[in-house]
């Protein structure tokens, strides 16, 4: 059990996807304007990451069996896109509440590099199936965590500080993201 806990903590703090590995920067900057949409996006990403890993890990074993592991990227994109589409349809029918809160974000995630990234990194790190699942779940939680932090920072920045005109909008967000990434480097070396 301790092993899995370490995996999750390491994915949330040490190898945080947007802040330490710089994956999924696009939604990190784009959807972090307010806390509600940041939470929605974070939860949707966590959900899809875990499910995508659950599906792609067995497929990788299949690819390896035929000796065509190099086709990983192409096949994964295909599978993840189809999976997200399927989940969207399923949610629309059976989980209307969840669909209403996550629905807008699901199509955005189809082509998210963080989702593909976590699937590929699970294979590269030679993790077994449960480890992969925890790794993906931790990565999603880390993403949610970073999104929420960013939304909080942006909310404060836009309300209460007098930002010089030339820094308003994207520049100040990039600066804030850079400083957050620097502070997350403090966790480096805690676990591998």
């Amino acid at each position, binding site marked *: 059990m301790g092993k899995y806990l370490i995996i999750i903590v390491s994915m949330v703090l040490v190898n945080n996807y947007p802040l330490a590995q710089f994956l999924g920067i696009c939604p990190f900057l784009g959807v972090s304007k307010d806390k509600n949409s940041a939470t929605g996006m974070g939860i949707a990403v966590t959900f899809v990451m875990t499910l995508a890993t659950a599906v792609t890990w067995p497929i990788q074993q299949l690819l390896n069996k035929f*000796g*065509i592991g190099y*086709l990983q990227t192409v096949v994964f994109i295909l599978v993840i896109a*189809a999976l997200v*589409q399927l989940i969207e*349809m*399923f949610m*629309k*029918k*059976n989980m209307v509440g969840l669909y209403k809160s996550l629905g807008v974000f699901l199509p955005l995630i189809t082509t998210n590099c963080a989702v593909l990234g976590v699937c590929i990194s699970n294979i590269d790190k030679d993790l077994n199936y449960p480890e992969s699942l925890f790794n993906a779940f931790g990565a999603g939680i880390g993403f949610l965590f970073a999104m929420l932090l960013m939304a909080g920072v942006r909310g404060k920045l836009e309300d209460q500080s007098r930002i010089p005109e030339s820094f308003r909008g994207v520049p100040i967000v990039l600066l804030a993201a850079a400083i957050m990434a620097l502070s997350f480097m403090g966790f480096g070396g805690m676990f591998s």
Partner: protein
Amino acid sequence: MSEMLIPIVLVFSVGLIASVILAYASKVFYIQEDETYLKLRAELPGANCGGCGYAGCDDYAHALTDDPDGVPCTKCAVGGPSCAEKLAEILGKSADGMEKEVAFVMCNGTTNNAKQLFEYSDIKTCKAAKTVFGGSKACPNGCLGLGDCEAACDFDAIHVIKGVAVVDRSKCTSCSACVKACPNKLIKLVPEAKSKIIVRCHNTQKGADAKKSCAVACIGCGICARTCKFGAITIENNVSVIDHEKCKSCGMCVVKCPTGAIQDMFHTPEQLEKIKKSVAAMEAKEAEKRKQAALEAAAAKKAAAEKAAAEKA
């Protein structure tokens, strides 16, 4: 051979399985959409411009279906009044207060009219040109004529002609993409039917300076404001502004404007003839009045003189 064949077959079969599953799922998870929603959605133009304030036509149709009393059916600017009427018909309520709006460029500073300060030959966008001393024209508010609005328009309704953007009212859908694109904030939305007579200038310079920078500038002299019988014209920030709600399209201001900044651009020849006649009639009436007043004054003078003479006698 098998080196090639295995990957091809495998990836193909993965794709095939995924597509079969999706096709099957779309049947299993098929949702019967609300009939009203489908009807409403069919009437909306599908431009997904977001002009109504919702995230696309689907979202607006959903909002209308869910709350037909709270959400006004006149929000779609692209569809205009005809679309609003159809939406209202489906929802069983009346569509009133919808007026078609069109974009209007408040500038007539064509290459002949406006004075150029220098030759601008850098990046061909208004936004870039604006950064170089506020544009090459002497007028600080004038149309830069490099077509940012033309590029922004999805409906081919605005074109730069002789250095000034002109809106084709028949094609304009009042999506306000050009209003946002113009770095000089020269374009505004006006009610189509009521804005036949319009100030085609937005020069905020003082009179003499405005006159120097452009031959057809509004110099803020206020003659139009004094001429208007309906109190529709005010001078704001050295520019004449017509309140289209009050304007009766009489055309007096067009006649009186010393620089020709107020224009009658959108009347048909027949309508113009009518307006000319009414203006002439109005002027004749006024001349008559003046004549009458002069006669009366003369008569009063005469009477006073006679009275004085009688008193003397």
